């Protein structure tokens, strides 16, 4: 087999298949984890009928969604209605292409990178792609020809535009510290600085995380699908597999936000406290732990936080949501950019 075909076609294809499989599997079991954790927080048992401890529940759910009748409401705008779930799912999966999950490793003398692409505009690209995902929600809400859906779609558009801006500024302060837009470069910068960026950038992380939760429409910012007011918001009229796509995209987006928090603020695949515990991590037993394990552990913690929030916080009112976004987070994130700039000058100068 010619080398070019192997390098340009076969290896990326294998990576794509593995990535998609793993992501979708995690998404499926994230729904199980959410139901189980929420149940324990509310002193219930959660799913426990299908398989041991309910382990097969996500698979049963998936099968059920596949065979369900696919309804299209009478007054719906047919083409847009069918397009919307795709418009939200594709960007959600596309974003995984640039996220670095671990350090390069060798297989048979060939260096394999556990990420698809290390582009030099990774962060800008992620922000751009995630802003395309909004269209799935708006168009899905509009095309359903239902007032609940439309209200949900409009709310979500307003919310996602508002929170994208402080999120962007929070990311800018990380870029200032790392001096690169590449995600691999950001992790390398943290390795060289011997410090996770969350310590100098604690404020930026707070802003990023709040905006990240708001961007994924999760509690306490789940206004686009506020059950009490809007039935199910933008996906009220969707059924079967199309509903499942909205659902899966939400969880995939949660994974992206968690993965980005890990990469930008918590050292990606680096072990914890690389400066203080360097001797410990170099010991023969622990040095064998691959970076992917650390990455998964950190990401898992953030995903747990998502579920934890849902079990803890009540929902914001819409005017409160806007006030928090524009009157608090935006000025705070701008101030943070200046603060980080001054600190960088002081530290380097």
């Amino acid at each position, binding site marked *: 087999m010619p080398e070019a075909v192997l390098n340009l076609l076969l290896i990326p294809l294998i990576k794509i298949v593995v990535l998609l499989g793993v992501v979708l599997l995690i998404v499926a079991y994230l729904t199980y984890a959410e139901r189980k954790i929420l149940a324990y927080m509310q002193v219930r048992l959660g799913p426990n009928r299908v398989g041991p401890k309910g382990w097969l529940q996500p698979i049963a759910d998936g099968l059920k969604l596949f065979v369900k009748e696919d309804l299209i409401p009478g007054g719906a705008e047919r083409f847009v209605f069918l397009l919307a779930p795709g418009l939200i799912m594709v960007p959600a999966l596309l974003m995984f292409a640039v996220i670095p999950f671990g350090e390069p490793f060798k297989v048979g003398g060939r260096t394999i990178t556990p990420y698809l692409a290390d582009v*030099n505009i990774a962060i*800008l690209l992620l922000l*751009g*792609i995630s802003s395309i995902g909004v269209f799935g929600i708006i168009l899905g809400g509009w095309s359903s020809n239902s007032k609940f859906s439309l209200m949900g*779609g409009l709310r979500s558009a307003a919310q996602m535009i508002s929170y994208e801006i402080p999120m962007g500024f929070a990311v800018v302060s990380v870029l200032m510290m790392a001096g690169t837009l590449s995600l691999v470069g950001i992790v390398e910068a943290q390795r060289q600085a011997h410090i996770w960026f969350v310590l100098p950038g604690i404020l930026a992380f707070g802003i990023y995380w709040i905006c990240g939760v708001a961007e994924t429409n999760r509690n306490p910012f789940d206004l686009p699908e506020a059950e009490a007011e809007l039935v199910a918001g933008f996906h009220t009229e969707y059924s079967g597999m199309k509903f499942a796509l909205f659902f899966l995209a939400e969880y995939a987006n949660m994974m992206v936000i968690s993965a980005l928090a890990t990469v930008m603020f918590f050292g990606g695949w680096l072990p914890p406290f690389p400066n203080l515990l360097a001797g410990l991590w170099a010991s023969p037993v622990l040095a064998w732990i691959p970076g992917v394990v650390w990455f998964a552990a950190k990401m898992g913690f953030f995903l747990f936080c998502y579920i934890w929030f849902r079990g803890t916080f009540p929902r914001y009112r819409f005017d409160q949501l806007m006030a928090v976004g524009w009157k608090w987070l935006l000025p705070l994130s701008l101030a943070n950019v200046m603060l980080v700039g001054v600190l960088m000058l002081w530290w380097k100068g």
Partner: protein
Amino acid sequence: MDFLVAHFAELLFYFLAGLTVLFALGVVLFKNPVHSALSLLATFVTVAMLFIFSHAEFLGAVQLMVYAGGIMVLFLFVIMLARTEGIQSEAAFLSNMAPAAVVGGVLLGALISAGILLGVLASGHGNPAALEMVDGARLGNTEAVSMLLYTKYLIPFEVVSVILLVAMIGAIVFGRKDRFSEVGKEEVDS
């Protein structure tokens, strides 16, 4: 096969360019405003791809963020909130077909000749060598753009942002004119 391998990049470029033109046509030709808006979104995305393809990665990402992500959402907002059923009477639009065709034809001709002229002048799409002339360009496109914007073109850059700010404030003032006068009236009445 050899031709494909040798000219892969060019073929891809022309494919994307053709797609862009098709979607742009869709913006004008679709009758449903939401379909037009979707077509415009697709145009923005393909233009962003063209930018990235021509070694202007920063521009491409910003195109995605600002135009596709920000401006299009606002467009859709307006279209959805406005009642569009009444707008679809095309009689007035179609009655001016002949002059519109003439003007459109002239513009298209001008655009094509300008494109050919530019193509001859620049000879080839994307010029990574030009980036090398900028300080710090070794780092990449983003760094090169910012280096130029914040050193050589600092004053024009700032002037443009001030102009944008003025336009924004102007739009707000025009948009809220009625409300201001109503508030004033109430005060006079009471």
